[in-house]
């Protein structure tokens, strides 16, 4: 009984992994989902207005991202991420856990939330 459960769940798992792989490989989304947005410049003052969990912007590596929709999906505890809302967070992004940067996957995910570029010197 236990052996049968092990075999069937393992086979089903690999089958579904293959489906996910094939789905990502052969059926890419029709339109490029990346927001090509916007080279609109945002100043430090403007950025600082969006410093809550519901309205959270961050400046990372010269771009500004609206992460309000993504925050609930972030794996870490809110206390780790929320203090960076409304701020320039490149350093925090690059030294996530024990000084390691975020993964290439996170970089890719981030692009989707880009709303403009960061203009630190803009009034």
């Amino acid at each position, binding site marked *: 009984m*236990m*052996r049968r*459960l*092990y075999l069937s*769940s*393992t086979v*089903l*798992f690999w089958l*579904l*992994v293959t489906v*996910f*792989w094939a*789905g*990502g*490989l052969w*059926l*890419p*989304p029709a339109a490029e*989902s990346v927001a090509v947005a916007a080279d609109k410049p945002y100043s430090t003052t403007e950025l600082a207005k969006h410093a809550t969990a519901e309205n959270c912007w961050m400046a990372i590596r010269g771009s500004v991202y609206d992460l309000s929709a993504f925050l*609930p*999906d972030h*794996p*870490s*505890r809110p206390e*780790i991420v929320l203090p960076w809302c409304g701020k320039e967070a490149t350093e925090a992004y690059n030294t*996530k*856990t024990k000084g*390691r940067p*975020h*993964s*290439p*996957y*996170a970089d*890719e*995910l981030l692009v989707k939330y880009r709303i403009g570029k960061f203009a630190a010197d803009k009034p």
Partner: protein
Amino acid sequence: MSVVRIVSIPLLLLLGVLGPIYWAFPTGLPVARTSGIVFGWAGCGLLLSSLLLMLREARLANWLGGLERMYRWHHWAGMAAYVLLLAHPLLLAANALPNDRELAWQTLSPFSQGRPVWLGWLSLLTLMIGLATTFDRRISYGRWRWLHISLGIGVVLGLLHLLLLGIDEPVLPLLGLAILFLGWRILREDRGWAAHPYIVQHVNPVAQNMVEVSLRPLGDGLAVRPGQFILVAFLDGPAFRGCGEFHPFTVSGSAVKDEIRLGIKALGDCTRHLQSIEPGTMARVDGAFGGFLSEQDAVPQLWVAGGIGITPFLAFLRAGNLRQPTTLVYLYRSEADAAFVTELEQLATANPKLSLRAQATGDRLPDLNTLLPDRASLAGHDCYLCGPPAMVSGLRTALTRLGVKPSHIHLENFEFR
């Protein structure tokens, strides 16, 4: 078994699952992602609980209703955890469906992810391979045991996966517990740190491929009741070299000065080697476990023993505790395998409450209908069975057919895998 003991393990598992889910339950997320997170934590809680259930501590086993019960739940909790943990990454990836199939694959794929996800995959693969070896009956017990314990590494890797995700608050104590349970099991039990030192006092050949060994404690002796079993690792003697592995043996007697007697039949490599054991061999003993024959009602008894399965009944009779009219059916292959039969006949002659039917059966399972008392004579009996799994299973079916309720059938059918 008391109600507390019956509910103890389900309650423990429920706490193990609900505790982490309560802490980590996400709000405001889509169903697939919420389920993915909940399944991950539930699997984590079940794995940790199953680690606790693999500990062989006599007191813990007593609270939780016996070692055999703990092992049965250990297997189920581990298996349920495995299925939940397989679903965990799939559900997280499914969150991106159906709009963004590429993102769904990237969420799942270790190639587009950082170290936390690699570790998650490594943990899952370790569990997958470890479980595959668990189901392989051809592997010797010694190797199987180490492969099975290596599943614990999968648990630790899974917890490290959570730590790298930045979730350290409940994970650090959970990791501490996992390491404590694994270390406890490996050092105290497998390495024998908690075991008591004994020395082999006498060795008597009692049948073909079977010896009875008497063990004397070198310090405080264990409290052992008839019907219980102990774990013994035989070490070295004057000329004998023991295999050093802990094996379960049901005691065949325990009396004078804390001495323990064990019947050892050559069933595997180690027990075959033990047929040539000699007095003076050192041993480490852990236990005692089990409660077979310990909670008898004041009703007539039917005991059926197959081969080496005679030992718990023999221990009970030797202790002189027989209070109820009892029929002992003792089955063995051939006369050369009829261990202790002369002593049993003497015990039956001396005690009018005991009636003995000893019979050689040959290599096949005998016709149980002719061996067992008829339906009318079995009414109101409690039945205790101990022997090879095929025989015990056949007897259960036959007894049920003869109208004996399952609650009146008690088994000693312990297996460590």
